[in-house]
């Protein structure tokens, strides 16, 4: 607003010049790299003329054969610790070039001299160096190397050696992401440094966690990261269905170097998952069976029915001394005395609707193996989650939540030629759900909106209804009250979700053209469909018409004779179908020159299209497309100095032609200090690793504004909007025409938002046992799309005018450690911990000028700040009410008194201030240990959130509203009343209507939402081999996992992880028993 007389459209899109220059640079690079590649090809080509096209080791061996004297031909075999052959292992003779690879049976043949040292290596095993002593045969048994797999890190579109990675990438061991939940996303909390994650609901099917990488730095709609499974973009829901057993690697990319290849899509970070592939060998079968019992971590406590009645009476009388009290003393007395519970009901709706626990089951099976030509990994899994709802035996349908999930995955790798590999990945996930009509959370909320004493859930039939077939549900008045039991049992909803993904990948080794060059192409398609159906009857509601006190009998009156049905009705819900097509081609090259200069390059092009079937709008029905080119160049000198250049060049269909493509470069430097010469000896033994990293770059986000807001450069009009039409004629509507409405004004200057990211990282390894990583990061996000708030309503615009004017920044630190120690062969211990602190703030936010109310400005506050009025206390008396600034609506003594911050004599929007901590936590941490002794392993993991605040929803917790809303026990125990004029009571003066004054957001209802919880405890026992082998098992482990077992928090009303959503389906405490077998 300080930009007087600037055009409304003129957002500060200042990156344009920069983009142009960088574009120029890109094209230069591009042509250079192409010419270099072609030059290289020529060279190779000339040498090819003499050498026939063969696998390189053979070529090399044949070359050097001539120089060797007194050679002996030796046969050998390489096996794993179980004695199975290891095919594909590399054997080289130290000090001599060349080597061989073992065949399918693990066998090899070499020509050796006595005294030669051979080195046998294979990924996943510790390399062995053996001196040749003249024997005719070698039998080499390799030992598994648990850390070897960590040496390779998955990076954007490629893989890199871990030591050379400069970008901030966290790789999480898939084993750490196994928890007793069929929802994969629930395992993130506290496990992943740099990720802020929390779960707001415990309802099966609705319990996906929210997660953000390094907090939130945008106020656009997409705040969560880009999620890729096998390079294919998927939704949060699809990620939640992933089975951790199928995961080969799970990486989180956080800084610019790691994400800039994703160009305009990577600004919020990237989650990259790859699924397992088969390995050469006999079929390996692995089965995991898990059975779990879950129960709420905490149920919201309600006041007992007697207190409810007494306080409801108080609520009426305290506001209006002449008011009619809803419950007579006689009713209260009879209810206490327990006289006929149908006449004097006292319902515990929670108990009536909800079971104390439910059971879940999970079975995973995978088979992998393969031969020289093809390798396979096939996995299937089934899980069933049940809700905690009761079922009425009179219905033969099940209204409880039952979510069955089936998944199938098949990854096949085929070597078409020695240099060509094809990979086919098929995966399918199916959800079958049945549950209550409005979902489980809704029932929890309905209980909060129900009166416990107005009527019983159901009546015992009276004389007239002895033969009635239907359930006699209770109700009152004219049958408009909420009977949650009826709502729960009246029917059921079913939904089916199918998601199928097919991927074909082709890798071509182009070593024959240029050493280290390879080409990869991938095509992926994804189909998703979902539909739901409701079947339900309309419950018959009854109330007691006549009650015969002497005989204790009653006659029931039906309240809705016409609308009730005994038969089921039917309604169809949404149908959602969409399909995604993705294409990717990548050219990879890496080579080491003179043993010291390691160079690599990568060029990728991607295309993606997503189409929605039921889009509901012409513009939304058009394909969502993305086009991207990306590249990477790395250079490492002597494994000590590293440099990396990345770029993404991306286009999105949402923007006008001239704003369509964006260039996102990044640069990074790394120094592996511990590989320096001076870092040898003693210090190396203590600090075995020391690495410093620095990265800087730009990343974009094209998912701005509203997801459904497609083409910013076009206006969006509805030329047939019924809501904007008019009617005329004899009957007022004889002649009606729809009208015209505008939901977006064209603006061809709108473009993606850009994040400028910095990252400094340090990695320390101590005593080869403790690894510590720390990253300091900051980001400055510009071009955030926002509504122009400078446009007054007198302009008469129907839709907000927006432009890329917002700016925000974030910074923080993340820290993690890993400790491994083996005391001896049988006793080991590991410990891990991580800590993330990420905070954000508004830098530029277009808002009205507040010359007298500087606190109203958002600038400088967190993006997730809570705003509210400052509640001082409750009003002491009417006189104070009269002499205080005017507040909201009708209020009196015992209602909340707010502070008039700007002292203008009234409480208004201008008095709202930022308060508390952000609603999204700033600190997330987790720590745990695991240890094992012989076959027994045990682990424990704690997780917590801090620096977060939540609001208790005063609207939803207001008791007695419409004679219905339930009363929280804490309110019953602690409220202002005329007898107990506690001006700091938890709940203000009771009322049976919503007192607008008390419903305002204020610190009165703001609570510290931080907590720490024992997230998981696991105890397992692996059968000794001698026993398992007897029953034809390779490995057998039984285990028990407990999740969310204990929570430490100041907030006691509900599970604080649910935030302000505490009145819905609670988060579950789960104890599961499982068995893992492999054959």
């Amino acid at each position, binding site marked *: 607003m300080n930009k*007087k*007389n600037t055009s*409304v459209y003129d957002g500060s899109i200042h990156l344009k010049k920069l983009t142009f220059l960088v574009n120029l640079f890109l094209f230069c690079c591009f042509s250079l790299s192409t010419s270099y590649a072609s030059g290289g090809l020529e060279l190779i080509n000339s040498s090819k003329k003499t050498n026939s096209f063969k696998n390189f080791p053979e070529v090399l061996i044949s070359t050097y054969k001539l120089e060797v004297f007194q050679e002996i031909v030796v046969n050998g075999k390489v096996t794993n610790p179980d004695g199975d052959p290891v095919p594909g292992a590399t054997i080289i003779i130290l000090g001599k070039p060349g080597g061989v690879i073992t065949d399918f049976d693990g066998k090899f043949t070499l020509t050796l001299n006595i005294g030669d040292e051979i080195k046998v290596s294979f990924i996943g095993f510790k390399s062995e160096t053996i001196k040749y002593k003249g024997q005719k045969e070698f039998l080499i048994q390799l030992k598994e190397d648990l850390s070897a797999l960590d040496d390779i890190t998955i990076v954007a579109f490629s893989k890199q050696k871990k030591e050379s990675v400069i970008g901030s990438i966290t790789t999480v061991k898939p084993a750490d992401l196994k928890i007793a939940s069929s929802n994969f996303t629930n395992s993130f909390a506290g496990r992943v440094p740099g990720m802020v994650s929390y779960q707001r609901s415990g309802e099966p099917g609705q319990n996906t966690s929210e997660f953000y990488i390094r907090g939130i730095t945008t106020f656009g709609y997409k705040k969560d990261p880009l999620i890729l499974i096998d390079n294919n973009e998927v939704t949060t829901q699809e990620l939640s269905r992933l089975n951790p057993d199928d995961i080969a690697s799970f990486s989180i990319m956080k800084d610019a170097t790691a994400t800039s290849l994703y160009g305009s899509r990577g600004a919020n970070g990237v989650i990259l998952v790859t699924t397992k592939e088969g390995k050469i060998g006999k079929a390996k079968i692995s089965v995991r069976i898990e059975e779990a019992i879950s129960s709420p971590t905490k149920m919201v406590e309600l006041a007992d029915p007697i207190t409810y009645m007494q306080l409801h009476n108080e609520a009426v009388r305290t506001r209006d001394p002449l008011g009619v009290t809803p419950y007579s003393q006689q009713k209260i007395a009879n209810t206490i005395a327990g006289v006929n519970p149908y006449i004097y009901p006292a319902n515990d709706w929670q108990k009536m609707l909800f079971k104390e626990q439910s059971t879940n089951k999970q079975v995973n099976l995978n088979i992998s193996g393969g031969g020289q030509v093809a390798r396979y990994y096939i996995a299937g899994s089934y899980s069933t989650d049940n809700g905690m709802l009761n079922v009425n035996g009179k219905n033969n349908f099940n209204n409880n939540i039952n979510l069955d999930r089936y998944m199938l995955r098949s990854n096949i790798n085929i070597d078409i*030629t020695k240099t060509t590999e094809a990979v086919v990945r098929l995966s399918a996930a199916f959800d079958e759900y049945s549950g209550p009509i409005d979902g489980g959370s809704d029932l929890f909320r309905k209980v909060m909106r129900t009166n416990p004493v107005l009527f019983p859930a159901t009546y015992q039939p009276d004389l007239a209804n002895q033969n009635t077939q239907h359930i006699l549900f209770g109700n009152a008045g*004219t049958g408009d009250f909420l009977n949650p039991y009826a709502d729960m049992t009246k029917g059921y909803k079913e939904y089916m979700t199918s998601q199928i993904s097919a991927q074909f990948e082709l890798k071509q080794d182009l070593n024959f053209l240029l050493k280290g060059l390879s080409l990869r192409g991938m095509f992926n398609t994804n189909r998703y469909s979902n539909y739901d159906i409701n079947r339900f009857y309309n419950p018959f509601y009854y109330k007691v018409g006549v009650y015969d006190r002497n005989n204790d009998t009653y006659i029931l009156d039906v309240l809705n004779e016409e609308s009730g049905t005994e038969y089921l009705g039917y309604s169809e819900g949404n149908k959602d179908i969409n399909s995604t097509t993705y294409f990717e081609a990548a050219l990879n090259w890496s080579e080491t020159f003179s043993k010291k200069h390691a160079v690599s390059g990568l060029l990728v092009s991607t295309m993606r299209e997503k189409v929605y079937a039921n889009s509901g709008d012409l*513009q939304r029905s058009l394909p969502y497309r993305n086009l991207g080119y990306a590249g990477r160049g790395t250079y490492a000198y002597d494994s000590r100095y590293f440099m990396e250049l990345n770029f993404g060049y991306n286009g999105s269909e949402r923007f006008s032609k001239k704003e369509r493509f964006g260039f996102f470069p990044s640069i990074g430097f790394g120094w592996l200090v511990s590989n320096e010469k001076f870092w040898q000896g003693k210090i190396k033994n203590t600090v075995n690793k020391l690495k410093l990293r620095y990265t800087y770059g730009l990343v974009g986000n094209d998912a701005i504004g509203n997801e459904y807001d497609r083409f910013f450069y076009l206006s969006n009009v509805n030329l047939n909007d019924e809501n*904007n039409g008019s*009617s005329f*004629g004899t009957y007022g509507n004889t002649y009606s025409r729809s009208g015209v409405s505008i939901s977006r004004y064209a603006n061809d200057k709108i473009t993606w938002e850009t994040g400028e990211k910095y990252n400094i990282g340090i990695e320390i390894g101590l005593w080869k046992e403790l690894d510590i990583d720390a990253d300091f990061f900051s980001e400055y996000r510009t071009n955030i799309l926002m509504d122009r708030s400078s446009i007054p*309503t007198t302009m008469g615009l129907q839709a907000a005018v927006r432009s890329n004017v917002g700016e925000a920044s974030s910074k923080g630190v993340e820290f993690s450690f890993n400790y491994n120690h083996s005391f001896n062969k049988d006793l080991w211990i590991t410990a891990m911990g991580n800590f993330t602190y990420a905070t954000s703030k508004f830098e530029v936010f277009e808002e009205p000028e507040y010359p007298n109310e500087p606190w109203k400005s958002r600038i400088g506050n967190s993006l997730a700040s809570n705003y509210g009025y400052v509640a001082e206390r409750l009003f002491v008396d009417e006189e104070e009410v009269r002499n205080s600034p005017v507040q909201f609506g009708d209020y009196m003594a015992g209602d909340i008194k707010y502070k008039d911050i700007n002292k203008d004599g009234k409480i208004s929007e201008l008095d709202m201030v930022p308060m508390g901590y952000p609603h999204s936590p700033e600190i997330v941490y987790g720590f745990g240990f695991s240890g094992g002794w012989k076959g027994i392993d045990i682990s424990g993991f704690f997780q917590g959130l801090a620096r977060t605040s939540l609001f208790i929803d005063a609207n939803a917790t207001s008791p007695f509203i419409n004679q219905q809303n339930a009363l929280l026990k804490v309110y019953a125990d602690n409220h202002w009343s005329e007898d107990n004029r506690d001006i700091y009571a938890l709940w203000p003066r009771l009322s049976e209507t919503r007192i607008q004054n008390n419903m305002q957001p204020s610190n009165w209802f703001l609570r510290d939402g931080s907590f720490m919880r024992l997230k998981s405890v696991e105890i397992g026992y692996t059968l000794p081999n001698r026993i398992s082998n007897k029953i034809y098992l390779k490995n057998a482990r039984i285990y028990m996992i407990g999740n969310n077992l204990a929570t430490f928090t100041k907030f006691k009303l509900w599970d604080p992880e649910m935030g302000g959503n505490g009145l819905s389906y609670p988060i579950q405490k789960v104890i599961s028993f499982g068995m893992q077998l492999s054959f």
Partner: protein
Amino acid sequence: MDYPTQFKKLFLLVCNSHFKKTIMKKLHKIILVQLIAVFSLSSCSDYLDVVPDNVATIEYAFRSRNEAEKYLFSCYSYRPEIGSVNNDPAMASDETFKRYGTNGNGFVWQNTLIARGFQTVNSPVLNTWDGENSSESAWQGIRECNIFLENIDQVVDLTEPEKKRWIGEVKFLKAYYHFYLLKSYGPIPIVDKNLEISSTTGEVQVYREPVDEVFQYIVDLLAEAVVDLPNAHEVVEGTEAGRIDKLIALSLRAKVLVFAASPLFNGNTDYAGMIDNRGLQLFPQSYDENKWVLAKMACKEAIDECLSQGKSLYNLVDPLVAGANPIFQLQTTYREAICDRWNQELIWGNTRYDNGFLSRSTTVRLVRLINTNDLNSQYAPTLQFVEKYYSSNGVPIEEDTEWINNSWYSNRFKLREMPAQDDEKEYVELNKYTANLHFNRESRFYASIGFDKGIYYGSGYYRFSNEDRDVKSCDFLKGGVSGFQGGSGYSISGYSVKKLHSFKNSQTINSVSTEYFPFPIMRLADLYLLYAEAINETDGPIEEAFTYLDLIRNRAGLNGIQESWANHSIKPNKPNTKDGLREIIHQERAIELAFEGKRFWDIRRWKQISVMNNQPKGWNIQGETKEDFYKVTLLPRKPIFFSTKDYFWPIKESSLSVNPNLIQNYGW
């Protein structure tokens, strides 16, 4: 680029080449070409052009008459919901009082919040400025009108006369939206031309203009519109009734000028301090009598044009009541002036409101309904307003000599010792007891108010004789058929508004049916009263004023003003002074136009908002016996103090922050 094909080619090439080494020599070149193709940027740039031609944009709205008609209807769609029992602020003055804020379904009745003094600057109720809290944004309506006027010439298949008519209608609407804002907010910006979306921040920060300028702008624009608008008979009732015609424009112009002349806008010194940052004073500080002269002329012009185009006061007897008692005929005629759709008296009927909901909110229950909320009588007259109706002699009950001498007036809230007699059975159920207040009143009282034991003619019950007691009466005692039965649908005062639903409606135990009628925004009686008021303000109590007032009284079965006062009032000379006649005109307006959403604006322009401070009263609806029921009861409302600030809406605080050139209304 067709990438799957490209890819397939590449794939085949790579595979084949390996097996057929004969083409090996060319391989590298082919691969190179393919690589360049895969990575080439230019060939794929149109991949992102996903938008086909002919995606609807605003230009399409004016391509044909058919589309342009929709735009015309869009311009109309911003009309306020005049006559809506919950969303028209004017349906919540001192005439009625409603249950607390919500109807049975939990919806807040926005206008009730105003009546209870809960208007706020944070989130103003019925906010026509920003289009919030159940109100459309009038500024959006004005923008639509301007877009229409800018583009209507592009329509190729629109005939010239029709185009002219549409332009006239849209100009009218533009003036009307300005007027609605003006009477709600006082001084307002004038938006004659739309500001471009790309306007600078400075340009969009408009100023509120002085009220005189705004009045002038509206009057001029209406004069422009009148020229283009059709005559009343040219508007086809079947499909066009409710569209704007010449008579509507002329009557609105008359009303606008009466507003301009009225005390709120004419020399109102209360708002002397409203001076904006340009130094302009927004309210004229001196009284200008000429404004009344202009108003008077405009009223006369409108009346003359109405009469010449066939308008007259409604005086028909519906065939359904042709055989009924003349008492019922008289009452029905008065009710039908509102409810007989598109009748001769109606000048402007609103087609934008839920007539069914209004009917259900005004009708009393005459039978035991299964769902008591179907007929909720929540739009409940206050006892004070019920007192306003004249006595059967046509004078205020507190002035009526007969009422005073018989102590009917002093005992008006007491049960009459004598039950209803045979000659009163058309008013009160025979042999039933009710308050003195309910006997000996004028016909408009019985036609407009449903009261305890009062006869309720119509609603499906028309026969009335001693043998067949088919005509129903109200029973407002607790548990009575019309009274409080629990739930939320009940009259809080023990009265209901009989006037605002057709006598042809019917109700049975499980169904309610309602007749449609367009809510009268302007009817001839209103114009007559405005004219009389303007005459009195300019010329005092002259014959011309009485002529028009008496026409209205005669229709209701009353004698003329001078005659009635001379014969029955303790103040027989009252009509002969300017002040006296003004008081009479005010009361006549209140009675004749009761519950029609006129009084809300009248008490504002007359600067009489303090009447809102009277605590509303009613009967004790919790009384199960008549002795219990007939106790005057204060209706539950927090004491409020309507003052100078309440004549206008507050401008939302955040709108002031966005545009610092706007100044807040006085007192907010």
